């Protein structure tokens, strides 16, 4: 079987809040099913790769300083990323990664960092660094074809607007803006979200949706993913949903 190929961009810079855990979870779920999975890294010192060779491109979240530094590197990737998106590569982006793929990010001092411009949304940080959307969050997504509660933790100053197709409806927490009804951005091959936790830790079905999408790009792929024993994950979900939704 050909391996699922993942490109983890800026792992050395966008790695706040345990976001690299998403890579560990995808690798774990592949390994348990004997599906080969390879993760490559891209950082500022790397040569620009052929992004379309990958099944999944992943970006985590970062602090303001790191986001500033890499906004100067992103332009050289811009064309390649746009082509990969058109070629159907899956894009998974968390927090800072989510913001940087939009039109622009205006930081708390009013400086604009241009985004890759892959999507139409933009993000504006409030003037005060104290104003942040922080807390446990539950959003209901339909990306898998049926309503699925996604549990995570949001911690962002930036307020994102101009989202045409959100990742999900907010059931508890803030979402794209303070007290927003919607969270993130998605298409069939895109998940952009503020959810840390990391995102896939308590949401194994979402992890499998992404893996299935990646596998379907391969001709020799199995028709479906073998089920895994997710007892611990499901118990964890039950406890958190009970706590967060039945207040």
């Amino acid at each position: 079987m050909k391996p699922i190929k993942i490109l983890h961009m800026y792992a050395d810079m966008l790695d706040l809040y345990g976001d690299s855990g998403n890579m560990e979870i995808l690798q774990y779920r592949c390994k348990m099913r004997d599906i080969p999975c390879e993760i490559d890294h891209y950082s500022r010192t790397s040569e620009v790769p052929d992004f379309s060779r990958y099944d999944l491109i992943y970006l985590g979240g970062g602090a303001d300083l790191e986001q500033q530094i890499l906004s100067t590197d992103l332009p050289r990737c811009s064309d390649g990323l746009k082509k990969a998106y058109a070629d159907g590569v899956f894009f998974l982006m968390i927090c800072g990664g989510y913001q940087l793929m939009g039109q622009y990010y205006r930081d708390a001092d009013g400086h604009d960092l241009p985004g890759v411009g892959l999507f139409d949304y933009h993000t504006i940080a409030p003037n005060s660094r104290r104003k942040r959307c922080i807390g446990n969050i539950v959003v209901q997504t339909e990306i898998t074809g049926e309503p699925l509660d996604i549990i995570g933790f949001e911690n962002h100053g930036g307020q994102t607007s101009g989202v045409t197709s959100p990742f999900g409806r907010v059931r508890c927490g803030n979402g794209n803006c303070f007290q927003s009804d919607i969270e993130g951005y998605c298409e069939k091959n895109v998940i952009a979200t503020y959810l840390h936790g990391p995102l896939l830790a308590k949401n194994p079905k979402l992890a499998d949706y992404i893996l299935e999408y990646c596998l379907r790009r391969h001709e020799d792929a199995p028709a479906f993913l073998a089920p895994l024993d997710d007892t611990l994950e499901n118990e964890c979900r039950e406890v958190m949903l009970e706590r967060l939704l039945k207040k």
Partner: protein
Amino acid sequence: MKRFYILLGKLIVKVLQLLGKNAGNLPGGILWTLTRHKCVSLFDVRCPIIAVTGTNGKTSVTNYVTKLFSQDGVKIITNKAGNNLDTGICSLLLQHCNWKGQVDADYLILETDESHVPVVYSQLKLETLVVLNFFRDQLDRNGEVETLILKINAFCKTFTGNLILNGDDPNTARLGQANPENKNVKYFHVEPYANATAELFEAGEGRFCPFCGSALKYDYYQYSHIGKFACPECGYGTHTPYLTASDIDLQKPSFRIGENTYTPALNSIYHVYNMTAVAAVARLYNIDNGILADAVSNYTVKNGRMEAFTLGENPAVLNLAKNPVGANMTLRVMNEMPGEKELLFVLNDNIADGLDVSWIWDINFSVFERVTRVVTSGTRAHDIAVRIKCSGYDASRIIVRPQLDEAVEEFNRTAGQKFVIANYTAVQPTRSALKRYIEKHGGAANEAD
């Protein structure tokens, strides 16, 4: 008005004490509101103030520094138990001042929360600030590490007192350039120990030069992003150390500063850094080497920091780990223990812990060696169980018991060496649960100070 507030505060302290309640934060909290957040400015402090801050090691270093100064006839006021916000420090001073707010002491030695350094020491004159390190910790409370560093950096721009900095932490050493006029900046440095690595081993902050943005080059990493670093572009990191610890041997354990050899009570590199910071304070204040050597070898802080218990027949060690760096250090210590062992991990997500438990994914559990079983507990018992499972550990050997007493019972169902890790608000309840187990089943607890 000031005297009224002082009297009111003292009254509240007395009432709380009569009621048998802890007066650690509430009196200061009330005065904080009444004084429009300037509660520490009520006090008249004439003696030197030494403050210790940083993500990890504040409580320990504060206790050791206090030990250095504790001679007959010297009156020290210190927040040993770690009430380290402005409100906690206000509550502490209320108990040691007269009705005019004058504080009677020879030294104030204060553990101070990182985010509260500018708050407290814009109101009280600080003589010496010791900064140990900056790691990601309780991100949802402190905001990003960078925001926190910028706050302290702003304070350091006008600070002219002694600034003792960890010269091996790029996040900390940068504070030395905040005020070019300050001639009292002193860096401490630790030479590589046996397990120092050429590559970054655990999640770290600050891989980039804060001054020019270039990737920092390291000769070696001791743990996380602590090590011998320098910026190849602008030369940041080439400071001369005020004091250097060398010949680090964690087997004995021992280390050397100049001509003197020290034998610390704990055998982690993390502890060696803390002791080097303590030694820097000792040098600055001309404290006799005998006193320093005695404190380093014989003094331990017994508050869930590598604290020993016997649970029934089972030897056990409890250690606090409130962030990935602390947890990774603890796992290293556990792994270096010979033979098989079992782990109890207690994870809470109370406000003081930071509500976000994502940090557990920055703990490197793949290093587990000879760990035969894991029990998890606390308000986020399930989260830590999932985390450990996804590192590749056999799920059938993970047992989830959110209720602490049940977890401790389950943990001791089998015989052998035990290791307990608890995060911030979990430490004291875990100690209590271990002691309840000992009352019921025998064993021994190491009584705290």
